[in-house]
């Protein structure tokens, strides 16, 4: 299983997939935004790999989560930081893992409060399926089908690696 989750291999997939989508859409100045925390580590790596000069944005979606009415406010919230104007920009949104799609919905709502982007390209390192909302990534490092007791987590930032946990025991 660890061989399947070689981080460099997945990052290569993500990078080449992104280059393809950017070329297809004719985007040459994308604005990169990572979702805290795993997505921010990935944005750091991909920003270098794609040779982007502009600093990337960091999004903390705690104020936009749809489970606030169930569990309250995340006490570990940190300020979001977008060091560019999103208005009219082509945005690459990055997260480590996509499952229900709720995090991405919250992130898109937050991005729109900074301005109206021209487009958003969604990239995730791992897609676990189990979607609850109609949100699909444009680029995926690897699609995985986990057993019910398994959890996957990106650890980092140095070194960046993927951890497969056997939960519940």
């Amino acid at each position, binding site marked *: 299983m660890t061989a399947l989750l070689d981080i460099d291999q997945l990052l290569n997939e993500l990078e080449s997939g992104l280059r393809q989508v950017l070329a297809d859409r004719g985007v040459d100045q994308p604005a990169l935004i990572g979702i805290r925390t795993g997505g921010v580590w990935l944005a750091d790596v991909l920003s270098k790999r794609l040779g982007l000069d502009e600093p990337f944005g960091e999004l903390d979606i705690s*104020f*936009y989560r749809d489970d606030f009415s*169930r569990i*309250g406010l995340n*006490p570990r919230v940190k300020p*979001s*930081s977008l060091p560019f104007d999103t208005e009219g920009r082509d945005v690459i949104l990055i997260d480590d893992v996509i499952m229900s799609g709720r995090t991405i919905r919250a992130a898109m709502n937050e991005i729109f*409060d*900074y301005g109206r982007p021209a487009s958003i390209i969604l990239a995730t390192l791992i897609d676990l399926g189990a979607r609850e909302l109609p949100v699909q990534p444009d680029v995926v490092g690897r699609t995985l089908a986990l057993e019910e007791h398994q959890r996957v987590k990106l650890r980092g930032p140095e070194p960046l690696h993927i951890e497969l946990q056997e939960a519940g025991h």
Partner: protein
Amino acid sequence: MTANDPFPHHLQLTRDGQLRHFLTLDGLSRDLLTDILDTADSFIEVGERTIKKVPLLRGRTVVNLFFESSTRTRSTFELAAKRLSADVLNLDISTSATSKGESLSDTLLNLEAMASDMFVVRHSQSGAPHFIAESVTPGVAIINAGDGRHAHPTQAMLDMLTIRQHKGGFEGLKVAIVGDVLHSRVARSQIRALNVLGVAEVRVIAPGTLLPKDVERLGCTVHYDMAEGMKDLDVVIMLRLQNERMEGALLPSEREFYRLYGLSRDKLALAHPDCIVMHPGPINRGVEIESAVADGPQSVILNQVTNGIAIRMAVMSMAMGGQLAERQRTQAQGGQV
């Protein structure tokens, strides 16, 4: 916990330690106060966006219940609630039904019947917000916006946020609170917050007639001589002289008070050169503070106002979140029992 505080502290926390009301700083840990400051930091960033609004309290109703008038506190609470997407109702009770003889309990029952989710309460009676928190329908959050001489916890927390922004933290700081401590609920909450957050020293500087009895027991040292008290200060907090609350002759004259306890440029020069100057407002220029100091480079008085919105957003969203999480748990348990 001070021995003379008659209010129960568990009232404002859920069983797993989340905030559900915000009534007093008594009984709240350093970790919780730090969580409030950290959350407020994130709300400061929200206030700098094109759209200064987040959806946390969308569809919730917040009632500003002010039994005592206040412009700044009420307007920052209103703006805070609106930036959290809540619907806000401002009730100035001195001009409403209570003046027609309706009791506090009846007023509250009527407001609850309008499906309110949060009351922000200011009252001239110490303990009024606690009374409301004890009698209100479960699930409704109460925020204290100042009660009698007891507490003004959101003001104290916005002051702590301002200090942390300018000083980076609390360790080693020497802080003085100057002036009318006797009538000040703000001073009580500030002394508590400064001690919990771990500053090196809290001083009060005032004439004996404007100090409450046994003020040292709150956790501070007393200086009657301002020149002495200003030495090595990192933060000086001026209090407004509350003339409207003065009964009898506590002061010879405003001019005499300014000469002895007013913050002039000369007196400020005795403090550390980086000392910041704070004031909860509204300021009486020439009574407790010289204009040149209030508007000077060491003054952070207007930062305090901006921080007030962020602190109130933090406290409101944390308390509402605690209430909602508790409702959820109760419902889940109800299904099993």
